[in-house]
């Protein structure tokens, strides 16, 4: 039954996820067309030449383009999280819940499947975003330097090594810890985000009226509580680093510490809310 639940849930969420991925892809293609267009080349040429007006206009256009691209991607990602919450609420606590909760499956399986499926699709979308943004950045760099895309890709390792070396030797930043943290966040965060969202919506079930609205308020409350908890958790490291001085290197380590603490707080809250959701659906379900 678990496999069947996964199959249906993956398909259902997948429809929306694929649509959003198609939009991501579409706007990246538009961005790529812009980067290889004569307009972009004229901006590059003008910036190295004498066309001041064209440079300013082109710069503004490039900035608006980049800003729009980033905002659209962020907006769509948030849109997907909202969709996941809406879908979860409708299938668990609204009319469709009457079918969901009369399926011959364990209540815990419902929460596990919904969290894992939502998290997996979010992870897929995050990875797709990384790839698309990297593609566009690489293409932009190649166009500016007058290189081919594949030349930049083949030289990427060398360029990245130079960049990391510059940070380590020039500013004293060791990116290996940040890299590990970024990888962990990329892999874990989609699942914790979904678990926290679903848990908060489940918390809303404790209200007598406006359960959906209370779920949203619970989500905001949980996020605030998580920030405060993260702040308290990170207090020790802040004080320790502060005693070590205010060098950029120390500040960089402090940023890493804060990042780690925030991830830890997220994992702790996600675990609590995940098991709480299972408890509510199993032992305290009230489909009024």
């Amino acid at each position, binding site marked *: 039954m678990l496999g069947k639940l996964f199959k249906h849930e993956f398909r259902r969420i997948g429809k929306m996820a694929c649509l959003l991925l198609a939009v991501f892809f579409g706007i990246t293609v538009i961005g790529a067309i812009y980067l290889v267009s004569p307009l972009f080349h004229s901006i590059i040429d003008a910036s190295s030449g004498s066309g001041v007006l064209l440079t300013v206009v082109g710069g503004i256009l490039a900035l608006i383009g980049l800003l729009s691209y980033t905002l659209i991607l962020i907006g769509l990602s948030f849109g997907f999280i909202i969709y996941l919450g809406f879908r979860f609420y409708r299938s668990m606590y609204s*009319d469709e819940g*009457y079918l969901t909760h009369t399926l011959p499956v364990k209540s815990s399986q419902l929460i596990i499947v919904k969290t894992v499926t939502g998290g997996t699709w979010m992870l897929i979308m995050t990875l797709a975003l990384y790839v698309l943004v990297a593609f566009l950045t690489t293409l932009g760099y190649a166009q500016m330097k007058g290189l081919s895309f594949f030349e930049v890709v083949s030289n990427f390792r060398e360029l990245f090594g130079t960049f990391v070396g510059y940070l380590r030797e020039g500013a004293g930043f060791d990116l290996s810890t940040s890299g590990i943290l970024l990888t962990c966040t990329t892999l874990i965060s989609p699942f914790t985000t979904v678990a926290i969202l679903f848990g908060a919506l489940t918390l809303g079930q404790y209200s007598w009226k406006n359960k959906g609205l209370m779920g949203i308020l619970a989500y905001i409350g949980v996020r605030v509580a998580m920030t405060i908890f993260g702040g308290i958790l990170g207090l020790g490291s802040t004080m320790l680093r502060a005693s070590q001085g205010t060098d950029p290197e120390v500040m960089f380590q402090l940023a890493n510490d804060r990042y780690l603490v925030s991830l830890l707080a997220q994992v702790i809250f996600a675990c609590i809310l995940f098991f709480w959701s299972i408890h509510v659906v199993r032992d305290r379900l*009230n489909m009024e």
Partner: protein
Amino acid sequence: MNDLLVLSNVSKNYGYGKLAVNNVSITLPRGKIIGLLGPNGSGKTTMIKMINGLLRPTEGEIRFLGEEIGPETKARISYLPDRTYLSPSDTISSILDYFEDFYEDFSRERAIKMLEDLQIDPRAKMKTLSKGTKEKVQLILVMSRDADLYVLDEPIAGVDPAARDYILRTILNNYHQNASILISTHLISDIEQVLDEVIFMRDGRLILYGSAPQIREQQGKSVDAYFREVFAC
């Protein structure tokens, strides 16, 4: 085992004072069509939801074929709620796939046959159907299972009289003799002829449980007339 469903001292308190179901004890046997009757707010739907695991009793215990309500009992109880529980964006065909995947006792052939009888296109999306047709689709899904107990909450409330006849025929023709049907309704006169037993509920309490023919004989009137007398405002 002839006892299908046993409710022992079951109560449900939603938390705002009044008990929606108040200390109900009842045993439903196999092979009967049982009417769950009572005015609005008498606790019928709450009791049905508890039987299907959608609500947890505040007190008491519900057992179906000796087991507590859970995945095993849900596999053997076919439930029709008093609302549309299917996603509007789904096609009927995809819903058939869903039921076929999750309910081992679901017969796709039977469902297709009933859809054909009613000239409902399985490729249609739920959101394109009228309210009455949606209700028919749900009833077809529920009655296409070989369950031990069918729990139907107001199955004929929202449909026209012609459709009511079809629904009643569908119910009668699609359950096996070992199974029971628990029907909650206000429209007693429409279903009285098919009822074997009746349960009267008022203010969350069970006030009568007996055989329909016996009530007619003892009271000298139809169950509908007796209901109107008992629940007169």
